[in-house]
Structure formats: structure tokens, C-alpha cells
């Protein structure tokens, strides 16, 4: 269901994020509370998280984090239209695209070790684990960062991760409701180059490929086949069992004067489901004074639809692959964000942030974050 899809996401702890932080590693413990809410009483997520980082001498840093997502709400999918007299999935009634309610909790954790060598090259190794009632995910990752010059102005990085997912799919189609364990794997390969442009700008270019194999279908999303015929029925969607994606990421960050930094990130993505997307994410930070930093940003996203997607209930007949999951449709999305950081002293800081996300599909969502970090 939407919930599982929401929760089974790869733990984007971003080796790249760890990489950049590791160069400036410091010990800290941080608690963060994240609240996500969609319009029309759709999905709501409350996610407290705890993270910590500790340097062991000059050559090692260990970082761990844990998050508990409590997810509730409803996501839309084709359902029997009870107003038409329909009461089960395969009958002569009608179908309606409406919300399915759910309630779920997920616990996820990750540990990452940064190892620095004599030449200050770095190796990042990590494990991630996520569990909820009908989804289990384990992943291991490794990335190596190598400085190509003595002044450490240029570096290249290469990383690989391998993830294994176990999904409990429900047999809605025969009405038995029996569950079956399905599996999928995911291999993610990323390579890039970072270049310091001058003493206040940095550029990074990365290419990536993601290979998914196995059960990639959303077991809680439905389609209608043979609508308007004697054999019409509501069945679980069916996605290909392989997905190969490629992409490029360009990042640039620069400081203007002493207090204003600007960061931009463009990502191009394409896969063999015919989904192609462009993402442009921009952030600015302004240090008002030594204690307060203001942040603002916006993100523009656009994607094309998957080649087996159609939202109409009278479209699918005998196609092997079929989905009406809105997330595979063509749409655009905008995000507006703002944040404030307050540094109480050298040890303690607080942060507060808000984001508004809006899709052309009609989905709107807000995200609020509040947290505290203790450095030692």
C-alpha cells in the first residue's frame, strides 16, 4: 500500500552526506521530530528520530541513527463502489478511485563507519535495517573517496550498495486474503567527482545507476480490467519484475560575502519503465548573526508517466503490466521550504523548519521539523 511504499524507501542517509560531514566530523547527539501531513485526510506521519556521531581518534567516525515512523491515513486506489451495490472485487458493480485507510508503524536504523587513511582518503561502510508489519528491508553499502591532488581540492568517489527487501503481499484477487512473502533486491552504483572551484565554491558531478529485481508491485494498489464487460474485475496491479534506472546529479554550492550561501542541485533520472524526471533543488542559508541562521529554498520536479500506467478504469484489458498508481503518472511538483537555526551556545542548537509540497495531481502536503543537537 502507499504506506509500505512510503516506509520501504531506501535509507537515503546519503553516503555523499556522510562523506561531506566526515571531513568536518564532530561528536553530536541529535533528536528530531518530523511531522508530515497530506491534504484531504490522506497520509499523516509522525517520525521522531535520534542520531549520533562519534569520532574515534583522527581516523574513524561512527554514526548511527534510528527513526520510528507512525503512519496513518488513507491513500487512493480503485475500490468497489458500494453506492453501486458492489461489495467485493469481482462483481458487476462499479469501481471508484478512493482512499484506503491504514495504520502502520515502522522502525528503521542505520550505522555507518568512516575510515580515514594516511593520505586522508575515506571509506564509508554502512548497514541499514527497516521493519514494519508487512515489509522488511536490509541493505549494506560501501563508498570510497579518493583525493586526486595534494591540496585536496579534487576528489573522486565510487560507491555500491546492495539491498534486500521482503514484502508480504495479500491475495486480494481470490478473496482469500492469504499473504505470501515476496522478495526484491536493489543494487545502487554511484560515481562522481568533486572539485573546489575557489575558496568559496564547490562543484560535484555524479552518475548513478539503480538495478531493481524481484517483486516491485504495490500489493495494495488495484486496477480495473475489462471494465463494462461481463468479466470486469478489480485486481492487484502488476509491475515488471525488473527496473533499470540511470541518472546524473549536478551540485553546486557557493558563498556570497560572509553570510549568504547558495546551493543548487539538478538531477536527471530515466528508467526502462519510461519514467524520466528532472529535479531542481535550491537552498539558501543566511547567517543573521553568530546565533541565528535562516534558511529558504524551493524544489521543482517533473516526471513522465510509466509505460504501463493509466488512470482510467476502462483502459486495461489483458495487458501484462498495468498500474493506476498515481505516483507513476505524469506530474509536476513544487516544494517551498523555510527554516531557522538557533545556536544557544557552542554545544546546543535548535532547529525549526517547514515545507509545503504540492503536486499537479492534487496532492498537497506539509512537513514540519523541530529538533535539537548537542555537540561535544
Amino acid at each position, binding site marked *: 500500500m502507499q504506506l509500505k511504499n512510503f516506509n520501504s*524507501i531506501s535509507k*537515503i542517509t*546519503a553516503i555523499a552526506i556522510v562523506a561531506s560531514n566526515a571531513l568536518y566530523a564532530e561528536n553530536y547527539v541529535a533528536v528530531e521530530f518530523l511531522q508530515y501531513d497530506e491534504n484531504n485526510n490522506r497520509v499523516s506521519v509522525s517520525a521522531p528520530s535520534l542520531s549520533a556521531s562519534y569520532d574515534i581518534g583522527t581516523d574513524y567516525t561512527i554514526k548511527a541513527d534510528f527513526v520510528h515512523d507512525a503512519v496513518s491515513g488513507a491513500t487512493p486506489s480503485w475500490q468497489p463502489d458500494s453506492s453501486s451495490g458492489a461489495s467485493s472485487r469481482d462483481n458487476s458493480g462499479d469501481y471508484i478511485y478512493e482512499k484506503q485507510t491504514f495504520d502502520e508503524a515502522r522502525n528503521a536504523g542505520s550505522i555507518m563507519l568512516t575510515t580515514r587513511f594516511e593520505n586522508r582518503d575515506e571509506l564509508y561502510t554502512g548497514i541499514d535495517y527497516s521493519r514494519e508489519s508487512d515489509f522488511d*528491508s536490509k541493505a549494506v553499502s560501501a563508498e570510497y573517496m579518493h583525493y586526486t591532488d595534494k591540496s585536496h581540492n579534487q576528489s573522486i568517489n565510487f560507491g555500491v550498495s546492495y539491498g534486500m527487501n521482503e514484502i508480504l503481499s495479500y491475495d486480494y484477487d481470490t478473496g482469500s486474503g492469504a499473504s505470501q512473502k515476496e522478495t526484491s533486491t536493489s543494487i545502487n*552504483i554511484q560515481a562522481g567527482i568533486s572539485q573546489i572551484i575557489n575558496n568559496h565554491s564547490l562543484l560535484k558531478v555524479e552518475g548513478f545507476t539503480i538495478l531493481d529485481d524481484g517483486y516491485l508491485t504495490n500489493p495494495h494498489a488495484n486496477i480495473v480490467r475489462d471494465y463494462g464487460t461481463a468479466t470486469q474485475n478489480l485486481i492487484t496491479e502488476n509491475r515488471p519484475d525488473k527496473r533499470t534506472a540511470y541518472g546524473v546529479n549536478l551540485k553546486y554550492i557557493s558563498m556570497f560575502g560572509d553570510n549568504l550561501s547558495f546551493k543548487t542541485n539538478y538531477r536527471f533520472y530515466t*528508467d526502462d519503465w519510461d519514467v524520466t524526471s528532472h529535479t531542481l533543488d535550491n537552498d539558501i542559508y543566511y547567517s543573521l548573526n553568530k546565533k541565528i541562521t535562516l534558511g529558504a529554498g524551493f524544489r521543482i520536479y517533473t516526471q513522465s508517466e*510509466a509505460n504501463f500506467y493509466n488512470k482510467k478504469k476502462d483502459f486495461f484489458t489483458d495487458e501484462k503490466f498495468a498500474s493506476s498508481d498515481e505516483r507513476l503518472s505524469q506530474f509536476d511538483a513544487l516544494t517551498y521550504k523555510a527554516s531557522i537555526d538557533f545556536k544557544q551556545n557552542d554545544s546546543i542548537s535548535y532547529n525549526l523548519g517547514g515545507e509545503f509540497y504540492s503536486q499537479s495531481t492534487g496532492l498537497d502536503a506539509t512537513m514540519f521539523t523541530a529538533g535539537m543537537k548537542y555537540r561535544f
Partner: protein
Amino acid sequence: MRKYLLMTMSFSLFMGCSLIEEVKPWEKETLAKPTMQFAGLHPEVNKFESHIYYSKEASKGGSGVAGGGCGCN
């Protein structure tokens, strides 16, 4: 046509190279600022944000390899 293309590429490469300055290790004070990190001030928030995008959109990747693939979309 090929000659002009080669000249344009060579010129661009030269200009690109000349835009890159050698920054000494002790000149990296600005680059060391927390607001100058690609991860932003709060990687934990970025992680959650990415989590949301991956669950609501059909594309993924580009944020690093940690966590492996995604079974979400």
C-alpha cells in the same frame, strides 16, 4: 563544422580550467562552514525529506548509495 566544434570545446575547456583556482588547505575556512555543506545543516531532515519524495514520486537515486535500493515506487 568539426573544426569549429573542436575550437569551441577547447576554448570551453580552457575557460573552465582557468575558472578553477588552487585553494590552499589553510584557505578553506569558508568551505568548512556548516552552511557550505551539500548535506545542509540537518542531514537527518534531508533524509526524511528524501524519504517522502521517494514515496510520492516515481524516481529515485542520486543522493548516495547508503540504504541500498528502494522498494517504494
